């Protein structure tokens, strides 16, 4: 599908396009899988597929506004599946989308090592923003478990290497 969402901000970088169907179906699929897999596999809530998809699209498009909006929409949909106020994931992923697209302009984010480090760092930022909003706005205190967050960050980092490689096939370079 041509045409759809064209994203490029630097002339010297590849302009990466995603069809409109990919832009809609992949985030939705990530949310569906995120909701369905925990029924079958006990460990899956440790992963955050919607976050990985947000990072991938934001980094690939290299434009802050689409990256930010992608994060906001994915986060809001994710919130809609919980019983918590809508906006916790929305705000967190908006910020992640913005910074991920900014990083995509400045750094090489195509190799596995940088993808791992980027996802590892964004996981921490996401958790910190979520934790802060939850505490300050919703007034729900939850413990900051370093061990669990480190484990999640590593797991999502490794998953990102695999997932981003697969999702690279969805890009249309020009």
């Amino acid at each position: 599908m041509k045409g759809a969402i064209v994203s490029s901000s630097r002339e010297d970088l590849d302009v990466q396009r995603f069809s409109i169907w990919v832009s809609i179906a992949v985030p939705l699929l990530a949310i569906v899988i995120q909701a369905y897999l925990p029924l079958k596999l006990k460990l899956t809530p440790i992963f955050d597929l919607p976050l990985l998809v947000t990072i991938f699209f934001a980094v690939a498009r290299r434009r802050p506004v689409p990256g930010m909006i992608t994060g906001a929409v994915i986060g809001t949909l994710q919130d809609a599946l919980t019983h918590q106020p809508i906006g916790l994931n929305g705000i967190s992923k908006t910020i992640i989308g913005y910074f991920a697209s900014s990083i995509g302009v400045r750094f090489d984010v195509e190799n596995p090592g940088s993808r791992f480090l980027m996802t590892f760092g964004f996981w921490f930022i996401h958790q910190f923003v979520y934790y802060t909003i939850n505490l300050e706005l919703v007034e729900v205190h939850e413990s900051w478990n370093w061990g669990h967050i480190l484990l999640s960050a590593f797991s999502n980092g490794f998953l990102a290497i695999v997932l981003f490689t697969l999702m690279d096939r969805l890009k249309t370079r020009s």
Partner: protein
Amino acid sequence: MILMGVLFIQIIALATQIKRTESPVQPNAGGTRLIRVWTMSALTPVEKLLTGTGRFFRGAWGNYIDLHGVRRENRELKEQLDRMKLERAQLRAEVEQTHRLEVLLDFRQHVVSQTVAAQVIGSSGSERSRIIYIDRGAHDGIKRDMAVITPDGIVGKIKDVFPRSSQVLLISDRDSGAGVVLEQSRLRGVLRGNEQGELQIIDIMSDENVHSGEPVVTSGGDSIYPRGLPVGTVTNAAADHDSEPFLRIGIRPAAKLDQLEDVLVITQMVEQRPAADESSPSVRAADVLAQRLPSITRPPEKDKDAGQADPAQTNSGQPNSAATGQQTPPASPLQKLQKKTEAPRKPAGAVESTPGQGNKPPVKRVAPQTRPGVTPDTTVGEKPPQ
């Protein structure tokens, strides 16, 4: 600038939800109903398709595998059935006695009268929100706060209802709560989940004796879960350092909360009092109580004299033993005193009232039956129409 704008809008929306959620009139609205309904309407068909496909393949494979070992399983089941028949006979006797005691105590209970079977089609996908989705919704008669159970134990309650699906808040979520009672020690508490999704009872005093392995059942006090449903077993009990005089009791859930596939939603519960069972009144609860209270039982030879010499008994309008040809049961000192105080005020034929019951429906008192062949002067279990 755009980032600030988007964040500002979302923060305002979040603050509005929190403000509205505090309203007791619409505890769930929060202004986000539409977003949740749309999201669930879009995702429910996909999740149903995924669940259905998975079930089909697992069912086909399972049917093939099940053919192996059916004979051995059948033999084991027969042996199990024989054992259960014996246990059932013992339990029936205990249930009958319990039932009679409940009649005496005017016990009210919620009884499950209707359930709807549902399949689990999804979850929240987050560790912070222990939510599952089932494939039954408002069109199937599901409403908020209905209890969700499995044959193993309770699962949670309906949190939100959509046209074709519903959101279930698991008992392991930190926002959930259920009234429970420890089956052996009869200690009552509130079951809650923690951040790790573990079940805890946190409001039992630390001087109570709680044993590991003790079963926990629902108390029925929360008006959501019927009384007596399995909840889990005690895994550990230790002093809660965050709230010092209380215990922190860990519970292993009876239902497999992380492997849920099929659940039952209790769509209708009726409040009822147990009716007196007239078919098997061989040993009545009052008799059981009478045997356990030393002041009520008397030697037979003294009973006869006491019954004849009691003037209050004839004055209170009760049938004379000589006239009816039956032997009047003996009265205990407690009954004598009660009859003496009630007799002058009570007109003939009036229903006997129990002190301390207030406006409750009357329950007739039972005289203890200490000898075979003696008919008591009153009966148990007359209840007003429900």
